[in-house]
């Protein structure tokens, strides 16, 4: 079902975003804790990185159809 595609994509995006954010956050926290003496900037960095990665992934995922050299696994 092609209309469900978008929904799936958004789910993936979200899940990815959450994951990345979480991971970033986690890593940030970890790194901040570990390496950067509980500064917040690694947390935000990493979560931001995470978020950014998620954003990028989501965007890529959403526009994957329009990119020609990518093989379409789904659909």
């Amino acid at each position: 079902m092609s209309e469900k595609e978008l929904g799936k994509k958004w789910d993936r995006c979200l899940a990815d975003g959450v994951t990345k954010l979480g991971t970033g956050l986690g890593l940030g926290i970890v790194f901040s804790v570990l390496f950067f003496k509980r500064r917040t900037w690694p947390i935000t960095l990493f979560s931001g990185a995470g978020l950014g990665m998620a954003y990028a992934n989501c965007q890529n995922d959403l526009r994957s159809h329009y990119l020609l050299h990518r093989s379409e696994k789904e659909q």
Partner: protein
Amino acid sequence: MLRVCLRGVKATARVGLCSTVSCHVGVSLLSSVTCSLAQGAAEMVVAGLLTVSGGVGGTILYAKWDHKFRAAVEKNVPYSEWLLGLALGPAPQDTGLPIKKRVSVCLYPPEDCKECNDHTVAMEPTAVLQKTDSAGTAEPLTERPVEEVAARLAQQDQEENNVVASVSASLEDSLASSAQATLQAIGAQEAALQAIGQHTHKLKEAMEAEAPSEEKSTQWKDLETALADRTTSMNVAKTALLKANEALDSLKSVIDKSKGLKVAAARPLILAAEENLHKMVVDLDKVVSKVQSAESEAKIVAQYSELVNEAKQQFHREVSSLTPEIQANWKGLTGKLSTDDLNALIAHAHRRIDKLNRELAEQRVREQIHIDAALEQQKLEDQKALEKAVGTALQHVKEEARLEQEKKLAELREVIEAEMRTQLRRQAAAHTDHVRDVLKVQEQELKAEAEQVLSSKMLEQETRYRQLTQEQLDNFTLDMNAAYARLKGVEEAIDSHVEAEEEARKAHQLWLSVEALNYTLKTASAESPSMPLEDAAEAVRASCVDSDFALALASALPEKSLKRGVYSEASLRARFYSMRSLARRVALIDESHNTLYQYFLSYIQAALLFESQQEAPPTQLHSEDLDAFKLLSYASYCLEHGDLELAAKLVNQLRGEARRVVEDWLTEARLTLETRQVASLLSAYANAVGLGTTQAP
């Protein structure tokens, strides 16, 4: 007057054709007298009448006397038969030569000759015919029928046979009896002969032999017995001879009687009997003569013995007179006689010798006379005997000659008979040949005629038959053709019916399958697609094997619909609505605008833009109608109004991500549309075909 005379003369000439001269003359005289006397017409008439009557009377009288003349007259003058019959009675046909011949033929048919019966039968009718032809008498003789003749002949034959049989029987009887008697007589005579001979012999022996007295006495006894035998045998012979003679006489009488019958068949029998008789007579005579000669010899011997006995007796008397004491049987007394006796005896003997000498001298003297006398006597006797013998021999010879003659006669008769038989046979053979030839010719003619008739009839029948058969055949052919044509028609009708039925059935089948397809299409529920259309399509394909159009259509069904089935319009509609919102949300996204920000913007647009839920699409789409929202509202409108096609068309105008989002729906819609189109086409086709095949009642 002259004319009257002439008339009278003519009348006489007419009536008396072969009259005698005297009659003619008398009649002509009469006519002349009447001519001279008569003057007037009446007298002339009277004269004429007298002449005519005189002529007629003379003719009748002469016909009575001469039968040939009568026959001639009857033949030549038309009604003379009647007249003569009236005057004289019927013509005497039954006397004369043919009768004698017939009688002789009847009485003298040969015995074992059946052909001769036929000959006689043949002769009978010929004889009768001859009679009728030659005589020409007043009464026609009917020919005796063959059976009667044959019966008569048979009867005569039988009578003759009976007579012959009786004659032969009597002859045989008498022959047998006479033969027996003769044999007996001969036997008796022979016995007598023997007895006589024996007696004579014994006598001679007794006379000459000098045997002792006992033997002599036995001899004399034997002699006596022989004499007795002789006498008895002589008597027996005499009686037998008498009987034989009687029998021979009776045989002779029988022979004479049978001769008197004059039956030809018995002649050989008679001849044979006569011969036998003659032989018997001859034998009997011979034997009798033998016996007589034996008797005469015996007489001589008896005389001699008598003389001897006499002499003996005399001597005995002399001896006894001389010597009374000497007994008769002096021959055995030689030892007992004394000298005196002996002297006396010797003296007697001397005296006797003297006497005998004297007698001897006397005898010698009278020898010649005695001899002559004896010779004369003997001559006389010989003559008598000779005469008798000659007489009997003559008789015998006569008899033999007569018998020979009879035999010759019989032979000759037989020969003649045979010859006559052969002649008759020849005649009969000739007759049969002739008859056979005639019959053959007749047969041929009749056969030819009959065959002709037969062939013509047969031809007619055949032609008729052929005609009939041809007619029948034609009718039959016509009927057959008609029937065949009808049958063909019927068959064709049936075939066309069958075809039509088949077509109808197929159409029906197709329709049913199409209906099934439609139904299958209808099985799509709200969310799930319909049943896979494969079976239905298969059924459709199966039911339309001969229709290319339908086949093409059936095979034009999309694969997906076959495998998975199609969604119903309702489900599509439902799905559209969910899809519409999504499509609204991604309306701004396309190849160039597909960042997340664009997504965000598109989302806001979707949230903020309000279009009419449903909008009727225009007949022509302009470029500003190609907006997603508008298209979606058009499509919605179309969907609401059940026009999936137009909706699909409109949805097809979406571009970008919206397009991507509705892609599936579109394919589904397309599928459904396609399937529906095919199904509708098929159903239309099926309907059309069904309509075409259904017949109005």
